[in-house]
């Protein structure tokens, strides 16, 4: 088996979730790589929306470094502003959201505002909702990308920034006035999670070869449901890795986690 990094595995798994003939609303980094890889493999007719207002760009100039940048608008079919991108989404034209955050709970709610202290005086303030809160509400399916760590998979969020299934009740999202169907997948480098359609609780669907459900449970603060159809995660082949490294992120900004210093 080829040697691959954690972020390469996440990008590869993310691409597998995306279907052809859909529109995916992407943020910076791994989501773009997942979408590009999907376009190059099984989903040639998948298109991306960037929140700053572009639809169906061709990323021939390389990896956008922020979602409003020049590269994210390269050869787009439609180039407007944030209102246009989010209104198209609110109208129902974005099938998938890719979001991240600092914490996630068992119902797929995500925190990207602060940790510790209070809202008015946080110990560590993060950038805020950005597009994620709107994407989690309005894209049809929410895919989260998280590092699998106990401190991130928490019993209770310090702050709910992006709505998931709330308290798990069947009408939580409807009462919140949001229309997207909610959390769909949570992607980590060691496990792929979905959600139980009845209880809306996070469910382990796939584990990386060599790991058991117990190993994953140890990395998560809340009790996981285990799918009766539990599978091993598919690993990227040499060809897949070459495509990821040479075509999707040649500068290695995200896959190699090149830290800017």
């Amino acid at each position, binding site marked *: 088996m080829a040697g691959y990094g954690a972020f390469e595995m996440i990008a590869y798994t993310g691409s597998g979730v995306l279907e052809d003939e859909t529109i995916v609303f992407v943020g*910076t*980094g791994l989501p773009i790589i997942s979408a590009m890889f999907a376009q190059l493999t099984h989903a040639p007719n998948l298109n991306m929306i*960037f929140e*700053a*207002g*572009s639809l169906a760009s061709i990323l021939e100039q390389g990896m956008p*470094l*922020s979602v*409003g*940048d*020049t590269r994210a*608008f*390269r050869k787009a079919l439609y*180039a407007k*502003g*944030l*209102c*246009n991108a*989010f*209104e198209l989404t*609110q109208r129902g034209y974005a099938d998938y959201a890719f979001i991240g955050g600092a914490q996630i*709970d068992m119902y797929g*709610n995500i925190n990207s*505002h*602060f940790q510790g202290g*209070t*809202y*008015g*005086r946080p110990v*560590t*303030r*993060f*950038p*805020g*909702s*950005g*597009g994620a*809160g*709107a994407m989690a*509400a*309005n894209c049809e399916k929410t895919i989260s990308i998280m590092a699998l760590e106990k401190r991130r998979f928490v019993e209770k*969020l310090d*702050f709910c*920034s*992006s*709505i998931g299934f*709330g*308290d798990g*009740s069947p009408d*939580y*999202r*409807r*009462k*919140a*006035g*949001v*229309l997207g169907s909610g959390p769909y997948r949570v992607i980590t480098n060691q496990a792929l999670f979905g959600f139980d359609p009845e209880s809306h609780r996070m469910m382990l669907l796939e584990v990386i070869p060599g790991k058991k459900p117990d190993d994953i449970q140890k990395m998560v603060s809340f009790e996981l449901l285990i799918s009766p159809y539990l599978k091993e995660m598919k690993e990227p082949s040499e060809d897949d890795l070459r495509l990821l490294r040479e075509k999707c992120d040649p500068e290695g*900004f995200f896959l190699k986690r090149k830290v*800017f*210093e």
Partner: protein
Amino acid sequence: MVTRVSSDIMNITALSREEINKRADAPFEFWGPTPEEARKAAVAKTKGLKDKQCTLKKALSTYLRDGINIGIGGFVNTRAPVAIIHEIIRQGAKNLTLSFQSNSICCELLAGAMILEPDHLSIRRIELAWYGYGVIGIAPLLRYLTSKGMVELDDYTNYGMSARFKAGAMGVPFLPTRDHGGSDMELVNRGQMVKCPFTDENVYLVPACHPDLAIIHVPMSDMYGNARIFGALCTCPEIAQAAVNCILTTEQIIPDGNIRSYPNLTEIPYAVVDAVVEQPFGATPGACYGYYWFDMPYFLKFKKICDEFRKTGNKDKLRAYYDEYIFGCETFDDFLEKKPYKLLKDLIKQDGAQPIVKI
């Protein structure tokens, strides 16, 4: 009769009762002009075509005052109105409210000025969706100010802030959105969940945002303020039209005859603009589609200085930065003088000659 309702957010929130009540009990206020005040200001303007070109010094000495709400254009590192921010810092203003979509260096520059000289420039509160550096990480001065409780924040989603500026631009007091509800933003921000009178479903209303002053950088404008934007429009047209006054910096002034040849390309109409300043590289170290790419090393340099201050509390390097690059410069051109020609040439090259209509 519209009924106030709420989602079931109370079932999951970790916010304290005290914090929730503090916000729930506060009477609603616009953090700047009310829709009626904004409308009156627009009506009072003379609306003929006039040459609005001037210097940034003059523009800001006219429109910058203590206590105003400044709407910052651009998005994260794209078309950040950096030249205007430098002049705001030079002239100084206290108790500012900042309203923006998503931004990085503009708010960090203002935050740094406040940390160094709070009697010269200070930020009282910020209404925002996102404040950070994107791929290079969290904004250290935001962390510093919030952890000390030095600024008040009001959080929305990116669409929430866009919708708020759009409501302002439309001249209506609010817009309904399909987000915020069911998240903690419902409990802490100034929006309100109501039952829709037509569908009977819950819907989240966000209040209009009218800045006193919009600061926007555009690729091109004529001398009257008719502006074109290429690449991401961000929320610049809405911010410009929502604000009471608007200052544009532009990469270049183009002839108004050219604007009349392609009126469909005008994103900001002259009537909402009060001052036009031709300032090439006016968004650097940010990017401007069709003109230049990010100056990433510059972002890293500034962020590193801010990170060091946050960790050590020592202001020396931060002060040296401001003394050299802002207070030590008379104009933004003087700041650009400090950049090697080779760097500027390279930033232009890295843009990759995007398709824009100049003729």
